């Protein structure tokens, strides 16, 4: 590459910056007269009946002396504005783990679980989001894993629909219960609950879909969510078509999910979330055969608002029941997990989890998991800052259909870039 082709982009770059730097320079001169003039938004948008002179008079009579601004702050603020861009907010979240399992082939089901003795690259998630325009917001989560890149989520949400409605369209995690709609880095434990893995798949229920949700005009939070998507993918729709290559013929072949979420704040410290969810869709055992999953979830949280240690205690439980129509039979099983997470201080967190999932004997659709399974887990987390955590977790796993085992896991999670909003 010759020097001319190098300098051209450089010139462009300088050209792009020059006007903004000039603006920054101008602002220095005005900021010494009125500090408030450096703002980009109008301070007092004129009310209809006021003239420019009246406004000026009010401004003069109310403004008084501006706070003494240091000489360079105007420059710096101008500079930071020059560096403003329309880039979306982006962050990378890395999860890596090391583990020791007491058997050679542990039955870890989550796609991002630590899954073997030695190291596991759980995931590197690139989260990107921004408002598209006044009408849509864009969110995407691209996951780089050991086996390549997947578009975990990429969707648009509406911002201005009337009647308290909101639409989401694209690829996203289904809002079913509490865990399914969230990403591994939002979980307290470093592996996916067994029931989610068995009923939905290692990636959870997720896919191309359209969702409509409605916030009820009530004094408390009650949201109804309905979505419809493709019932395909072994990762994400195990109880439905899974990886069977069956063409869809009409709306009756789609996957439908309905959820109702409520939130009851008892006081500023105590609160309770409860939800009910159902998912219905075709399965791959013959025309007209369907599967249905019903779930109930509960999240009780105590966080003293004025705790200087950011202490909190939360109890989260999900129960799911599944029923699948197969030729001449109805297969039914259920599963649950229940976890208690205690944030002791800014830096330490403890968690306990119990899981129980039943199996159908000689399940034709789930040959390698046809009996009951229980798992106990305990974890301790250390937070060096708000952007990193180190976790240690012990699992004791009892599958009735295989050998019981222990797992000793450690995980490191780090986040760089924009700090995304938490979910309750």
């Amino acid at each position, binding site marked *: 590459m010759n020097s001319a082709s190098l300098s051209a982009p450089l010139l462009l770059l300088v050209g792009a910056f020059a006007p903004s730097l000039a603006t920054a320079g101008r602002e220095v001169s005005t900021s010494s007269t009125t*500090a*408030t003039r*450096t*703002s*980009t*938004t*109008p*301070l*007092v*948008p004129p*009310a209809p*009946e*006021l003239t420019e002179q009246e406004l000026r008079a*009010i401004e003069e*009579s*109310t*403004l*008084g*002396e*501006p*706070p003494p601004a*240091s000489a*360079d*702050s105007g420059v710096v*603020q101008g*500079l*930071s504005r020059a560096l403003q861009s329309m880039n979306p907010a982006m962050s990378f979240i890395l999860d890596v783990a090391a583990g020791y399992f007491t058997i050679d082939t542990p039955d870890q089901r989550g796609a991002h679980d630590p899954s073997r003795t030695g190291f596991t690259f759980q995931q590197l998630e690139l989260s990107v989001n921004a*408002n598209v325009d*006044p009408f849509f*917001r864009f969110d995407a989560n691209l996951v780089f894993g050991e086996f390549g890149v997947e578009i975990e989520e990429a969707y648009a*949400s509406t*911002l*201005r629909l009337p009647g*308290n409605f*909101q639409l989401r369209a694209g690829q996203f995690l289904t809002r079913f219960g509490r865990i399914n709609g969230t990403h591994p880095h939002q979980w307290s434990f470093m592996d996916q609950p067994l029931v989610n893995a068995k009923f939905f798949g290692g990636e959870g229920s997720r896919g191309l879909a359209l969702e409509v949700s409605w*916030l009820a*005009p*009530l*004094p*408390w*939070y009650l949201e109804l969510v309905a979505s419809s998507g493709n019932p395909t993918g072994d990762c994400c729709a195990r109880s439905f078509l899974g990886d069977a290559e069956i063409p869809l013929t009409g709306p009756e072949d789609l996957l439908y999910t309905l959820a109702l979420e409520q*939130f009851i*704040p008892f006081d500023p410290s105590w*609160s309770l*979330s409860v939800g009910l969810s159902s998912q219905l869709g075709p399965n791959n055992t013959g025309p007209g055969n369907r599967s249905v999953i019903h779930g109930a979830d509960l999240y009780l*949280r105590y966080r003293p*608002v*004025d705790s*200087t240690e*950011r202490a909190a205690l939360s109890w989260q439980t999900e129960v799911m029941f599944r029923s699948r129509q197969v030729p001449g039979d109805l297969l039914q099983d259920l599963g649950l997990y229940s976890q208690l997470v205690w944030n002791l201080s800014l830096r330490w967190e403890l968690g306990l989890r119990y899981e129980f999932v039943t199996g159908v004997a000689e399940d034709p659709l789930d040959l390698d998991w046809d009996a009951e399974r229980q798992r106990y887990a305990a974890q301790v987390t250390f937070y060096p*800052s*708000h*952007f990193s955590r180190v976790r240690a977790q012990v699992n004791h796993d009892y599958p009735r259909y295989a050998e019981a085992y222990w797992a000793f896991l450690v995980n490191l999670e780090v986040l*760089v870039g*924009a*700090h995304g*909003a*938490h*979910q*309750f």
Partner: protein
Amino acid sequence: MSPIARILTLCLLVVPATAQAKLQVVASVPDLAAIASAIGSEHVDVVCLTSPNQDPHYVDPRPSFMVTLNRADLLVVIGLDLESSWLGRLITNSRNPEIQVGSNGYLEVSSVVERLQVPNTPIDRAMGDIHAGGNPHFLLDPRRARSVAQAIAGRLALLAPNHAKDFNAKLEQLDRQLLIVATEARERFQTLTPGQRQVVAYHQSLAYLLDWLGLTPIATVEPRPGIAPSPSHTALVLRTMRSTKTHTLLQESYYQRGPSETLARLANARLYVFPGGADFEGGESYVERLRKLSQGLFEVLGASNAAVSGD
């Protein structure tokens, strides 16, 4: 089902009763709520999402906030990423087009304030949890609050032009009070000796308070913003306090007190803990809060004289 049925009946009674013409204002922090309430007075209902003893950086994004935001005509926030970890998604999901970023019902007051600690070098989180746009705790300075009050008055007038005169009258009144508080306290603090005006803050959140009152920051108990104090850094702060003869520690009530209390004991200093905002629920005005804050602080700094002579 019976409690749910009871709530349902209750809400049927409540919903029509709450339908009125007052402007619904939601504020992220109590100081903003108190300012908005002072200007809007009888024409607005102000709801504050957080309490004065709650750290505004770390708030649980309760779904109930979504209901509050859904009905808001105006949302007033500090900005500069102070609320970004909890408020962003709630705004998106509030299903209220009027309070989305860029709408008239969304006001980020940091846009009208002359900020401090705007990073002038490339930033990195190795520096701690710093705010890229500058320090967001500017409501600890009444002079900057004057611009904030003006911006709020302007926005209220835009949303309810019929009451613009009232808003402007209230703004003038508040502005005068703020100017008096600002000037009186500043002059009063000038009577302290330079030694008495030296302070150690817990977090880098007090820049504006120190700027207003002419105080000198000596160190922060946190080694970097958002990083919990380590033994070695705390020891360094102690040595610095001793060598500079600093006898006052300051912090908001929502930060942990253990390290500051230990430092106060070992350095023969006083720890002054104050609420992070006005007691808006309790009816405290923003001006009252500033008076109480500066009065309390003045007494502590003034008393450090005795501590110095006792050394």
